[in-house]
């Protein structure tokens, strides 16, 4: 900005030219350029609120591969664009600072967390699954076919989506595990 422009933008001058010092003359350049940030989104993605079973429709606004806003989708005949406080807090839930992004490991008898790379953790868990499954394996009970294992169990699923639960149930059952439960119980 040149000095001239700077002076010309001085609200007092604008005021003297007839601008309202309580209105347009007082506007700053930043204000004049104001746009809702969702207008700058690279894409808008259809989503559903992750909290409760009402299933309110959400729109997720993304800019530079980051979520910049989440709001209700008025198209939904269920929620008509509205969100309760929890649904409205989805942005902070998903992008807030309490989210963990690292795998942590506590060794037996350890007193604190340690870091562990994800692929290493996956390998270790796979090994442990196989071992615990074998340990708890039962072929039969009083001569009757059982072919299950009580060595492993899993809990949770109501915050997971259908596809995740489906794979979970499928894998679990193929492993012979029967102790698979979730919030639908409690």
């Amino acid at each position, binding site marked *: 900005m040149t000095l001239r422009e700077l002076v010309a933008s001085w*609200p007092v001058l604008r005021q003297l030219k007839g601008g*309202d*010092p*309580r*209105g*347009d*003359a*007082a*506007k*700053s350049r*930043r*204000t004049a350029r*104001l*746009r*809702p*940030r*969702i*207008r700058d989104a690279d894409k808008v993605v259809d989503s559903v609120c992750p909290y409760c079973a009402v299933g309110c429709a959400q729109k997720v606004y993304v800019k530079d591969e980051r979520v910049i*806003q*989440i*709001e*209700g989708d*008025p198209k939904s005949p269920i929620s008509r*664009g*509205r*969100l*309760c*406080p929890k*649904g*409205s*807090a989805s*942005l*902070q839930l998903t992008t807030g600072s309490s989210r963990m992004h690292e795998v942590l490991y506590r060794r037996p008898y350890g007193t604190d967390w340690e870091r562990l790379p994800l692929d290493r953790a996956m390998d270790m868990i796979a090994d442990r699954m196989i071992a615990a499954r074998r340990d708890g394996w039962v072929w039969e009970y009083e001569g009757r076919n059982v072919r299950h294992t009580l060595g492993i169990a899993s809990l949770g699923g109501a915050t997971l989506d259908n596809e995740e639960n489906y794979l979970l149930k499928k894998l679990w059952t193929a492993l012979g595990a029967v102790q698979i439960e979730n919030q639908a119980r409690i």
Partner: protein
Amino acid sequence: MAERMGFFTDTSVCIGCKACEVACKEWNAIPEDGLNFTGMSYDNTERLGADSWRHVAFIEQRKPLARQEPGVDHEGPVPPLGTPPDLAPMNPMTPGEGGDLRWLMSSDVCKHCTVAACLDVCPTGALFRTEFGTVVVQSDVCNGCGYCIPACPFGVLGQRKDDGRAWKCTLCYDRIGDGLEPACAKACPTDSIQYGPLDELRERAAARVTTLNDAGVDDARLYLADTDDGIGGAGAFFLLLDDPEVYGLPPDPIATTRDLPAMWRHAALAAAGLLGAGLLAFAGRRR
């Protein structure tokens, strides 16, 4: 000038969910306000301020809500209204029958006054009136002088601790400028917060009060819808079920700047008086 836009907040359908508070914070990236368990029913926000641009009030009263049957039965007196919360089990309470109870909820916000004291007194022009007739603080201009804060007859504005600036509801100036609904109104599940052209809202509100009154909800009344009041009518007005002061609102607010011409006259006289008296002091004897 665009059409004047505003809010009609109909507290008779508010469910006290506080979605408006959260949606506002998310949209405007307002800092969190700290954990403070107040004991004021379910209200832990307490008041509007720099970091709460919507505030939902919760009022438990020994009063009937029309013919609603609350089912409760209590013995014993209740402490009078206005008692500080640590002394009052339920507050504010209207002395009344122990079988009466109603729970009022109401979402408060900046009133975007027609005569806005905050705007009038702002020395920097940070506060200005938009083409929608709303009142907005420009955070890049505000210098934290704090003058607007006590000027507002509703105690809406607050100063943010870390940067000293004053903050309040912008009526989502960025959104409405682009044809979007303000974040709080959009989230509100029951449409307690209604956004639109002010004239339409006033009509709708008037009809709503009539409906409610006719249906036996005698307490229903409009607040700040009247352009003859001390702030020239608000851009955000309310349907209340009790006196404004019950909700923490001033019963008869006036924009103090209305008295400003008189005040300037007095000040001019006083200044002249000082000059005159000062000069007069030199008249007369030298000792």
